[in-house]
């Protein structure tokens, strides 16, 4: 036990709630005798204004260099305890409420013993804490937008509204993307050219937007705030630019990918005769022709729309492309607008017109458009200019034959070629449908690379208004990286190169590819890419990596100090490592949910279960801990992609070693706990304590 320090230990009675269970006075007496402790006191409410003020005064008056707050969980009252007049990394929170008084209220004596043991180990952690300050990295105030369609243009304009520069790169010779060639927008049935013209003139007049058409991204390197992008201009054949002149490099702080979509080609669906039969066209072709020629809408007198062509189909596009129902209704209404007698029939599986789009559907019905619930099995050329559509009408319950002049196949959106190219060139992860992978629910605009965002249909099929919205949200996210500097919290890992053996496990296991090698071949972390999950700390076979706020030395010290018989000689002691995103919070909920578990477990919060190093687990067993419990998110929901899976492997290695050493391999255990699985957590602990009681105390306990 290092005896350095002038530590202030503060125990909160939590307005009596904690003190009802835990005998705080006895803890005060105990802690006063510990080395390095300058003052110990209990308080009725540490988080109150008075409580905070008292701590602040004592920090100053007594020259305290560490503060221990034994109270509620660290995820609560963070604002209150962040301003104690001492660097926040020198403040240690000990969770004697959610993980002690609330769950062990049935046995105050044991709860007090556990609280004492908790204080002991977190005091040791505090002794080894270092003051840390956030790091500021200079960053470039330029954004790169890839793709000049609706999403890209809006993103560029949103960013240029601030003082950042924007490079807008578009591979075609003109901006506008797919909608530039379209006839109408829904639901307002207005021409795209109206909105687009306005946008394009704003782009032109914006001094900080640089448009590069006929250009593509060929490479991207660097990190958030400091990307280096290589842009290649296509050879136009007209201007004789040589190879070098065509390539330029741009520095960007953030990148927004808006590479859009392409229509799905229905040729493989031979039953619809696309390319074989006359007058069978796609919805995109309808738009283009309607825009090119006014007469197009009147050229024929009857049109059938077939929905979901190649969509929601495992053999083609397995997903729904979101817009096709509205597109067909819009196109049908255009036909009716041109000629109210035009015979329009829409063959569908489901009509998807959510929200206020329902209004357009009603309008379509009222205008005499026929909706038939059934997807035609095949089309036949009945006569020149006449196509027979045979369908089983599922509502009417019988087969109908329809003869029409033209069939419009409502095909879906697929990921553009540009997207696959991106994956290859700059390592953007695509999902199984080849769209850019993102956490659709919580972080729809993020990609797996920090500082690179997605907007519009390159992420998923969507309509124009959603594309514009997504462009806006991507722009807001991008702005975090366009302030001219990036501030990084000092939680990132530090590699002790005196111990490093160049095995590169840290580089390999980092889910965010945040490591590279320096000139001496030692791993170096890019702190702007790093998410401080600690998987690297868990991976190092030599224990050479530590996180800013949790180090190997701290953990080793805590193992030394832990009283391995704090509940008496017969009771096993379990050390838990709970991941902060799911398991620790699930455990915190136990008290409120009226769930309890035995006091044999003391938990340490880790950013990810993958951060737990195998050597620390081995050391814990060596030092006499009876059981180790690691709890992480469910494997496929791990917030850091692979932490739980890695933790299981690490534990398995330790377990195998224990077996060879004739120590029960059951003394280490992993459990998946998701945020709301409090009951499962409690059951696991109960079961584990019972099992360990049967196994007996750790044979290494007395050495």
């Amino acid at each position, binding site marked *: 036990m290092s005896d350095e320090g002038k530590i202030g230990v503060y125990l909160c009675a939590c307005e009596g709630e904690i003190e009802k269970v835990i005998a705080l006075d006895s803890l005060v007496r105990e802690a006063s005798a510990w080395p390095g402790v300058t003052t110990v006191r209990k308080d009725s409410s540490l988080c109150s204004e008075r409580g905070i003020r008292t701590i602040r005064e004592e920090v100053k008056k007594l020259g305290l260099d560490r503060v221990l707050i034994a109270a509620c969980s660290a995820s609560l009252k963070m604002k209150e305890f962040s301003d104690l007049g001492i660097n926040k990394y020198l403040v240690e929170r000990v969770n004697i409420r959610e993980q002690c008084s609330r769950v062990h209220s049935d046995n105050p004596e044991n709860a007090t013993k556990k609280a004492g043991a908790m204080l002991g180990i977190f005091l040791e952690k505090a002794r080894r804490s270092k003051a840390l300050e956030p790091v500021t990295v200079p960053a470039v105030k330029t954004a790169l937008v890839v793709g000049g369609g609706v999403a890209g243009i809006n993103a560029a304009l949103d960013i240029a509204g601030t003082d950042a520069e924007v490079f807008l790169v578009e591979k075609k010779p003109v901006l506008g993307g797919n909608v530039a060639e379209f006839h109408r927008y829904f639901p307002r049935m207005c021409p795209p050219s109206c909105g687009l013209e306005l946008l394009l003139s704003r782009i032109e007049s914006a001094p900080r937007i640089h448009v590069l058409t006929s250009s593509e991204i060929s490479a991207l390197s660097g990190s958030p705030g400091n990307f280096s992008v290589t842009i290649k201009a296509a050879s136009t054949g007209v201007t004789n630019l040589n190879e070098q002149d065509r390539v330029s490099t741009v520095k960007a702080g953030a990148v927004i990918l808006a590479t859009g979509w392409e229509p799905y080609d229905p040729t493989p669906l031979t039953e619809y005769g696309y390319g074989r039969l006359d007058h069978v066209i796609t919805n995109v072709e309808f738009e283009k022709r309607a825009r090119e020629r006014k007469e197009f809408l009147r050229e024929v007198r009857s049109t059938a729309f077939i929905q979901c062509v190649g969509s929601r189909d495992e053999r083609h596009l397995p997903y729904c492309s979101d817009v096709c129902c509205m597109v067909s209704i819009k196109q049908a209404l255009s036909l009716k607008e041109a000629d109210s007698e035009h015979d329009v029939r829409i063959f569908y599986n489901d009509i998807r017109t959510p929200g206020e789009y329902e209004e357009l559907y009603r309008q379509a019905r009222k205008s005499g458009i026929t909706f038939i619930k059934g997807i035609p099995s095949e089309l036949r050329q009945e006569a020149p200019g006449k196509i027979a559509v045979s369908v089983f009408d599922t509502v009417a319950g019988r087969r109908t034959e329809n003869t029409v002049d033209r069939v419009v196949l409502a095909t879906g959106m697929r990921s553009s070629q540009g997207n696959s190219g991106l994956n290859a060139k700059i390592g953007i992860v695509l999902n199984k449908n080849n769209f850019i992978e993102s956490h659709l629910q919580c972080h729809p605009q993020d990609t797996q690379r920090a500082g690179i965002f997605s907007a519009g249909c390159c992420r998923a099929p969507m309509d124009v208004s959603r594309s514009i919205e997504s462009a806006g949200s991507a722009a807001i996210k991008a702005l975090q990286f366009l302030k001219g500097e990036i501030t990084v919290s000092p939680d990132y890992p530090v590699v002790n190169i*005196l111990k490093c053996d160049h095995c590169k496990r840290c580089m390999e296991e980092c889910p965010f590819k945040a490591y590279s090698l320096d000139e001496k071949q030692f791993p170096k972390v890019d702190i702007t890419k790093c998410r401080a999950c600690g998987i690297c700390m868990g991976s190092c076979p030599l224990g050479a990596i530590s996180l800013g706020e949790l180090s190997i030395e701290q953990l080793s010290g805590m193992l030394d100090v832990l009283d391995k018989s704090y509940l008496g000689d017969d009771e096993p002691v379990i050390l838990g490592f709970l991941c902060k995103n799911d398991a620790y919070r699930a455990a915190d909920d136990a008290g409120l949910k009226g769930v309890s578990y035995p006091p044999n477990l003391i938990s340490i919060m880790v950013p990810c279960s993958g951060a737990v190093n195998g050597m620390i687990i081995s050391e814990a067993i060596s030092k006499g801990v009876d059981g180790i419990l690691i709890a992480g998110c469910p494997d496929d929901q791990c917030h850091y992609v692979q932490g739980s899976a890695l933790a299981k492997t690490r534990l398995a290695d330790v377990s195998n070693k224990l077996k060879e050493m004739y120590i029960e391999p059951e003394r280490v255990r992993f459990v998946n706990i998701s945020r709301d699985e409090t009951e499962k957590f409690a059951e696991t602990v109960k079961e584990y304590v019972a099992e360990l009681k049967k196994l007996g105390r750790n044979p290494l306990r007395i050495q």
Partner: protein
Amino acid sequence: MTQKIPKSLNEILTEVIETDLLIIGGGNSGCFVAIEAKEKNPNLDVTIMEKAHIDRSGALAAGMDAINTYIGEGETPETIVAWSRAQVGGGPLREDLALSNAKILNQCVESLEKWGVPFNKDEKGRYKKRGRFDVSIRGEQLKPIIAEKTKSYQPRILNRVAATNLLKDGDRVIGATGFGIRDGKFYVVKAKATVVSTGGAAGLYRSATNDGTTSHHQMWMNPFNVGSGYAMGIRAGAEFTLMEQRWCATRVKDFCGPVDTISVGYKAKMINAKGELILQTRYGHLGGDTAPRYIRANAPMGEWSEGRGPTFVDTRHLSPDQVKDLKIDYLNERPTYVLFLAARGQDPAKEPLEIYGSDPYIVGGHTASGYWVDVDRMATLPGLFAAGECAGGMPNKFVGGCAAEGVLAARGTVKYISGMGHGNLDQNQVAAEKERIFSPLLRGATMEAKYTVPAGQDPRSQYDGVTPEEMEERLQRLMDEYAGGVGQFFKCNEEQLDYALKHISLMKNQINKLFATGLHDLVLVHDVIDRLDVAEVVAMHLKERKESRWPGWQTRTDYPEVNPKLDCFINSRKNLKTGELEMLKRPYEQVLPGDRTKAPSPIPLSAEKA
């Protein structure tokens, strides 16, 4: 890693490095040289050339259970030197070197504790003594801790580079050459000063348990320390001393591991098959338990040769706790001794532990063999320094003393380097060395398979050449039989030594038949070449000392008594013009007064400490 074997010298890349201080050998003393040199002058460009990996290389690979030289309460630098002198029967030894070492010894040992090595402490918080100058440590991490400290000064560390020869400009040593064991490169390191700290020479003699299966390297010393540092100096014409004073130690039998742990640490006495206390019974007149070290080395062999074996250290009085502590000591130095006992189902408390003599080693950390150096640890060639087991003249250094040697050598080099420029590199010398290093490998790459390979045999048997293992085994048996190996109870005579020298010469003429089929093999080739050079010097020294001053370490059956005229250093130096080894004598200078064979008892605590 599949290596590309070069077919010509041109294919081999040369890497030239210019540095201020080159340290050959990154073991205990080598690391201390680097640390002290950087402490004295942080701007010094320091390069360490290390054959293995600095984290574990050298004699400390598995750890250490004790520091055998620490001046505790009641002792002074003078008393430890006097004790060391008595341990070698009164010398001769270089008392000037020993005193300079003893004066800084404690701070070197204490720095180990500062860096995190756990030292056992007594109730008063002082280092717990297990012998007069021995303190117990838990040194399993000793080498990694020293390596980390070294790395913190950021010297240039060339791991997996085997040093092959010194570079010379006239008489001055201006650096060294080597080859990369992984990258296959030719390394030329120019240095203003060069320290040789390659440890001692093991594997000159056959080990007692050498067999045709898996126990070839069953020896006390690190078998990868082959004496390359000595060999390079021999070839460069440096002067060596007391190379006849081999370290032949009593070790636990078969396993060939340390025995001081038991005998000193747990006061276990040497007994023979009949249970007689050997040292008291037969060597009482020489001090019994406190008889000089070479007596203790010889004692079990004496019993065996006279038919009173086996011999043991009697551990039957140990309590279970003491047995456990004993095993923990071994786990910190040679962990597999515990496995050895387990593999025989042996309990030290029930059966005494067998002991036997070891094969002889040349190791200047235990005896006084090595380079002839001055007080600055500079050898007889300017620019060349020796540290640790390479430095001769001072016995009983052990780990602590070798660390202090490193510090002293560093100070010597820093003094020498100031104001000094680099020497001139002779490109012919460099080219010749490149050829010498790599020709066995090129030979191996271009040899034709001449023979069929007998079943279960090494595929190298296809080639008409000599493998390094063959030559090594031949040398080891030769030395064992003719130069006083353990198989001959350490005894030899003039005729045997001449025979040994003749056959060493025959083998040296056949070095050009050695071939290597890969870089690892090339290491073995140079290992055996270096061993031949060292063995030759050892045999010459044994021949020259026509007496038996330290029986066991050096026993001449034709001159069994001590000859007072030979109370001096026997030194050697290769004449670079004739190629002959010249033998010379240097006088012994007594600095500390008093009876050389007695070690004054510790001064009572009330007396002043020096």
